[in-house]
């Protein structure tokens, strides 16, 4: 194809594969933060304390309506202005973790709302405590309908990690850019990056669908 150079391809491939490791690490860490923080956001919106509910709701809306790349810049550059220096990794993880926590909180919210009212009433009629009701009755049922959304955002966070390159996190895109500016060849590195992304995100999406079915069966909801 056109000017494609295979020797160059094989020369840069190891570097890109190492960088893929960083990309996966960034996606995994960011997702772990988002999964936990998202649940906090979702549950905070269900407390009877109105000011907290409204504040969290607005914060989630704000985060969801503004560009992640701008949030990454904001977290990375605003700290030093006030004497807090964050490494690119730390800033990146905070920004991407917060961003996806906002998305996941919406997924959880939908999942929680999909649990029929009768389940709450049955738990109450058995006199289960609030904590027990959430952890043993409601959350296990809110999980399966949330899984599809959670899976989408797992793939989503993976595809958004290239934005971390803007503050110098040495992930896949950053490495491809570096190769490009060293060698003045963009065709191979950028194309390879695309192929690597495709090779990871497509099977992951398929695996998530399988996992979803497995969880449903495991919980006896199949």
């Amino acid at each position, binding site marked *: 194809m*056109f*000017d494609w150079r295979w020797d160059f391809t094989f020369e840069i491939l190891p570097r890109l594969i190492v960088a893929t490791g960083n990309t996966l690490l960034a996606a995994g860490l960011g997702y772990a933060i988002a999964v936990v923080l998202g649940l906090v956001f979702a549950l905070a919106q269900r407390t009877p304390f109105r000011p907290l509910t409204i504040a969290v709701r607005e914060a989630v*809306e*704000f985060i*969801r*309506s*503004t*560009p*992640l*790349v*701008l*949030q990454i*810049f*904001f977290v990375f*550059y*605003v700290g*030093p*202005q*006030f004497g807090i220096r964050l490494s690119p990794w730390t800033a990146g993880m905070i920004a991407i973790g917060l961003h996806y926590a906002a998305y996941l909180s919406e997924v959880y919210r939908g999942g929680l709302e999909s649990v029929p009212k009768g389940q709450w009433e049955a738990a109450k009629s058995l006199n289960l405590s609030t904590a027990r009701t959430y952890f043993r009755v409601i959350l296990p049922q809110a999980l399966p309908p949330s899984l599809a959304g959670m899976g989408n955002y797992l793939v989503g966070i993976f*595809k*958004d*990690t*290239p*934005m971390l*390159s*803007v503050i110098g996190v040495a992930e896949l*895109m950053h490495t*491809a*850019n570096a190769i*490009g500016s060293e060698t003045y060849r*963009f*065709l191979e590195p*950028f*194309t390879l*990056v*695309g192929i690597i*992304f*495709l090779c990871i*995100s*497509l099977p992951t*999406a398929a695996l998530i669908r399988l996992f979803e079915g497995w969880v449903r069966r495991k919980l006896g909801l199949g």
Partner: protein
Amino acid sequence: MSYFEFLGQYGDRIASGTLITMALTVLSALLAVAIAVAAGLMRMAPNMAVRGLATVYIEVFRGTSLLVQLYWIFFVLPLFGITLEKFTAGFVAVGMNLGAYGAELVRGAILSVPKGQWEAALALNMSPAKRMIRVILPQAVLIMLPSWGNLLIELLKGTALVALISVADLMFQVKQINGTTFMSAETFGTALIIYYVLARFMITPFMRWLERFMLRKMGRA
């Protein structure tokens, strides 16, 4: 420098960046809608080659990152003799990316039009094209409009990436201003608020209005 002095000095550049962002949003939205309808319909075509083409398009654009696509269109396409000016490359990348997501919305909405509607249209002996245009699509539009509201906000956010190929949008302007003033909270904070206002006070109300308009048009309001 107080925030007001900051706005006085850099307000013009921020405003011009905002206008570029809005122009990018409108252009890429139009492109995304056109691609979404075309790819969504092709995805359901009886011809396997047509269906396959649409599937490949959708999977490739949904399976890789917008940033990767943007760089590829801007840096690699010229090697194939297709050189797009950076503004054009920017909105084409965003439009093609979000169009792939929109295609799935179109397909999902068409599939969720009740089966009885297809059968009723068939019973009136409408041609396949007539069935789609006269009966199915109008109902599908109503079904998918709420999801398009979210997609357009994603699209607006996506346009911020074109700053990375030096299109002078809002993101690019505040990045430049930050580079000379180091007033990061003011620059990036202002931009965050502007994006939020565009999303929540322009796109969302517009989509609500469009929904109501369509509902009225179909006599369901």
